[in-house]
């Protein structure tokens, strides 16, 4: 124990240039602080995951236990039976979700980045107005715009098509606002250098702006994916065949055919994909940017 401590102290004495402004005592304190809040943050989830593997008698145990004692897959087996009985195969729902999520995410990242670039880096007639409009539109509640939205979509003949879910997602103001705030950080001198070399705005956008704002658009991929993955298709998709998987699963849970164990299994299944996507992309943010900050 003492050995480890002295080792840590030694490594603190010989630490690299950029870590010299740190003290061991404060580091330890902050780590404990992070640990406590981390546990508070993550425990209901651990609980939810553990619940999905609990047999029925453990779910209703008093007092409740955090971890599962005798893990079982019966909740998942029950779920697969219920799913197998529905008249549209679950694979169709999954296909719908993947289609909506992938197209929606790619569209969001490209379209909002394209628009964010000029708004972040240039001043031109209307740019300020547009920027303000976008910030303010973030603050208007969607419940009351649902009705006008529906009317517009039905006029455009988009109700009951995938487009009715994908298109509004692509015009995400949050995405544009996020991208714009990151692109502001990219030094003007880099863009000017490219301009002098004769690059068009499109080239600058694609070859300079997008690589430099990688951490931003990866964040946007995560956010957009997560939102679209959880979408239930709202009030725009009527045909059962077009509906996403989260709708189908929420029907199973809400209709009361399922027990609480199956509900936990559903929660876990819906959770896994966004978590995997998050881990893959988020570690990408951290790895790429750790070595290359934006330099003038």
């Amino acid at each position: 124990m003492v050995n480890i401590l002295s080792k840590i102290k030694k490594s603190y004495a010989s630490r690299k240039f950029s870590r010299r402004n740190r003290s061991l005592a404060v580091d330890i304190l902050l780590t404990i602080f992070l640990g406590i809040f981390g546990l508070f943050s993550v425990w209901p989830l651990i609980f939810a995951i553990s619940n999905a593997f609990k047999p029925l008698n453990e779910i209703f145990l008093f007092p409740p236990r955090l971890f599962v004692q005798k893990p079982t897959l019966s909740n998942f087996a029950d779920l697969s039976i219920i799913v197998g009985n529905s008249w549209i195969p679950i694979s169709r729902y999954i296909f719908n979700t993947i289609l909506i999520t992938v197209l929606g995410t790619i569209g969001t990242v490209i379209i909002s980045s394209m628009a964010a670039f000029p708004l972040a880096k240039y001043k031109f007639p209307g740019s300020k107005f547009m920027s303000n409009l976008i910030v303010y539109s973030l603050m208007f509640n969607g419940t009351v715009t649902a009705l006008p939205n529906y009317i517009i979509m039905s006029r455009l003949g988009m109700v009951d098509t995938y487009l009715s879910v994908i298109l509004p997602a692509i015009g995400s103001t949050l995405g544009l606002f996020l991208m714009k705030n990151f692109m502001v950080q990219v030094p003007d001198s880099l863009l000017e250098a490219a301009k002098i070399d004769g690059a068009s705005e499109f080239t600058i956008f694609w070859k300079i702006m997008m690589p430099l704002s990688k951490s931003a658009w990866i964040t946007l991929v995560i956010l957009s994916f997560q939102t679209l993955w959880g979408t239930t298709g709202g009030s725009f998709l009527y045909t059962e065949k077009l509906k996403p998987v989260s709708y189908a699963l929420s029907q199973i849970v809400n209709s009361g055919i399922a027990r609480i164990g199956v509900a936990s299994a559903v929660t876990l299944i819906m959770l896994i994909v966004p978590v995997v996507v998050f881990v893959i992309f988020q570690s990408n943010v951290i790895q790429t940017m750790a070595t290359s900050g934006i330099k003038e």
Partner: protein
Amino acid sequence: MLMIKKKTTKNNYKMSMSLKEIWKYHKEKYLLILPFSIIFIVFTVIPVITSIVISFTSFNMLEAPVFVGLSNYINLLINDDVFLIAVKNTILFALITGPISYLMCFVFSWLINELPPKVRAIMTLVFYAPSISGNAYLIWKLIFSSDMYGYANSWLLKLGIVNEPILFFNKKEYVLPILIIVQLWLSLGVSFLSFIAGLQNVDKTQYEAGEIDGIKNRWQELWYITLPNMKPQLLFGAVMQITSSLSVSQISIELAGYPSVEYSGQTILTHLYDYGTIRYEMGYASAIATILFFIMIFTNIIVQKALRRVGA
């Protein structure tokens, strides 16, 4: 150098150009914005304007809207006692959760950023977990459920703190505090992620330069280097926190029930849902949305002014 350049471009605009010239100089920029603008105008701007117009009418979604002037607003502010409770709750809620969750987002992302890369990736997931998991906040319903099987109650009973189960969601003094705890638990979301990414963007050589210039500890480093570099993300995070802390509704409906005991969990948005999705009085609902909209814009202006002083 940058300042001078910006000023001259500004002056150019004052010598107003013709539309043709504007197009010639900025064609590519407009083309880049175009696809977004079309979708944005069709699916956001037009519906928002329509909704504001509807707020001056009486509209039940079946018959054509009837123009009633300001009467929706007057009713809301003078005759609707429940709305005033909702406003009070919402502002109280936002005043507590807004600043705390904003600080939490920053402090946690900053601390996580100090960790070695692999631990950093795990900790990001740990703190982001509540936001990624959709409706996992429903687990709090289980925790605070009123019988002795509720987790909070069973622990309190076991530890001998209480003798009989507390009816958490049936007593009005418990409702708002519980909602605040759950909201804080949920609050490391979009802004947290953007802070994490923003911290990665800070040029590492600046820290070394700062050290040579006499920065002595991590707190000075934070104030003089990290925060000024993070300004765009701080602005983004502020807008996100304002909208999320003023538009709490789902957790209130799911946890405290609807309507909640003595309207203790009523917020501006739950009031809006009441009129918009249950009573179908769209005019009235639109008026509520418009008032919330202006409260948010007002808050935003104040917060943005305060943020300009950061790191100065």
